């Protein structure tokens, strides 16, 4: 796997501003132009599975942001000590630990959500976005930059699944965060509670986004 080396050669320069142009770009890129779901097409599985309703989707989004940010931070902080031959296992161990922590906290304090999300929270371990960022960014960049990168990718993932969940809950159940929006008489669309509905909504989001950014796959 290739690594993006954004670190400059060791030349004494004035300290980079806290939110320099380069750092802003690290956060903003994954939100739109390099979005993990719509452009890199990663993490599709969970984007389909948890987006029937907004509430579990929000919990899932928070969990993923937490895991990406902290795994990026930890891996970046110890990147100079990780033996290259076992780096993937080390990354996985850190991700798995963080995911287990999230799952345990959900079980303790929001048991209803834990019941709905149970398996999917565990599957964050296999979410390619998380490992992709560790391998491509955190292994080669400083801790603060890695946290920014984690925030960017996390929120890039979060807004897409929340958008999909908004459409699916509105037309599939006629509600918004379980508050009734559409009248009872308005027929709900069974397709939207099915994964097929998620595919269609996701496809439309990708279409709109690409027609705006002009992104073409090579």
């Amino acid at each position: 796997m290739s690594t993006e080396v954004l670190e400059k050669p060791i030349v004494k320069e004035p300290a980079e501003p806290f939110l320099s142009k380069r750092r802003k770009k690290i956060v903003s890129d994954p939100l739109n132009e390099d979005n993990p779901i719509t452009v890199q097409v990663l993490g599709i599985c969970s984007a389909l599975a948890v987006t029937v309703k907004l509430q579990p989707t929000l919990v899932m989004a928070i969990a993923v942001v937490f895991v990406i940010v902290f795994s990026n931070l930890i891996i970046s902080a110890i990147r100079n000590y990780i033996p290259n031959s076992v780096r993937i296992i080390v990354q996985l161990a850190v991700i798995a630990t963080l995911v287990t922590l999230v799952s345990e906290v959900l079980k303790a304090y929001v048991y209803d959500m834990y019941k709905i999300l149970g398996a999917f929270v565990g599957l964050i371990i296999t979410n390619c976005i998380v490992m992709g960022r560790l391998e491509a960014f955190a292994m080669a960049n400083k801790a603060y930059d890695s946290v920014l990168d984690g925030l960017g990718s996390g929120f890039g993932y979060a807004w897409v699944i929340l958008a999909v969940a908004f459409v699916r809950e509105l037309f599939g159940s006629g509600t918004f965060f379980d508050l009734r929006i559409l009248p009872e008489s308005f027929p709900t669309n069974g397709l939207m509670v099915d994964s097929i509905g998620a595919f269609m909504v996701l496809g439309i989001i990708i279409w709109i986004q690409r027609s705006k950014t002009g992104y073409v796959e090579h």
Partner: protein
Amino acid sequence: MLTKKGGYVVQQSNFYVIRFTIILTIVLGLLLSGANQFLKEAQDKSIDLDTKKKILSAVMDISGFTEDQQILDLYAQRVESIVVDINGNKLDKDSKGTQLVAEKVNIQKQYRFKPEERHYPVFMFKGEGSGKVEAYIFPMWGAGLWDWISGFIAVKEDLVTVAGVAFDHKTETPGLGARITDDQVKDRYKGKKIYDGTGNLKPVIMLKGESNQGLSDHQVDGMSGATMTGKGVNTMIENYLKCYEPFIEKVKSGQKVALK
């Protein structure tokens, strides 16, 4: 031993790799077991509350209670529980001699044992003030279309009429099989009968398709598009009523079996 490569230091000696992985394992392991210890109490409370909510929801509407403590208080006041075996006799201790608590019996684990070896919790819902048992609540476990389904069936003091049911499921299809948790579907069971006129056990059966007419006392309307889930529910209810039948018979015949 340490070489600079690709902008970061790469450690290559086997000894370093082994030492690194051992330290990492210990640190992460300690972190996880610490978190587990720290959260255990809150987790047990959540599970306990969830179980009690489900038990109560089989006999009454609990949507009006917003505070968790209200549920726990209500449960403590109104519900008494025991554990019985397949013959309807009260069990105080399991085979290892540990005290049995009905709320802590894991129905999913028990489901894997042979029916004769299982522990069967019984929850008795008592009238306000009178202390007289108004309903017997039996937990159930079974298989739906995709994964497990579970539930509670509450039977009135006559031990014939269904007072209500509560269902739960893991991954039944949303909008189809998952409707077993909707009030609209659960309410169909209210007032149905689990014994026929001659005193034989006759479980309530969910029919195929929706809007069936002329339902008997032992039939409830089905869920359109969810025939398999309906079948799973039927099998679950039948299996568990059969297992609880000896207990029901004992209470009916006036033997004050296990009621304190």
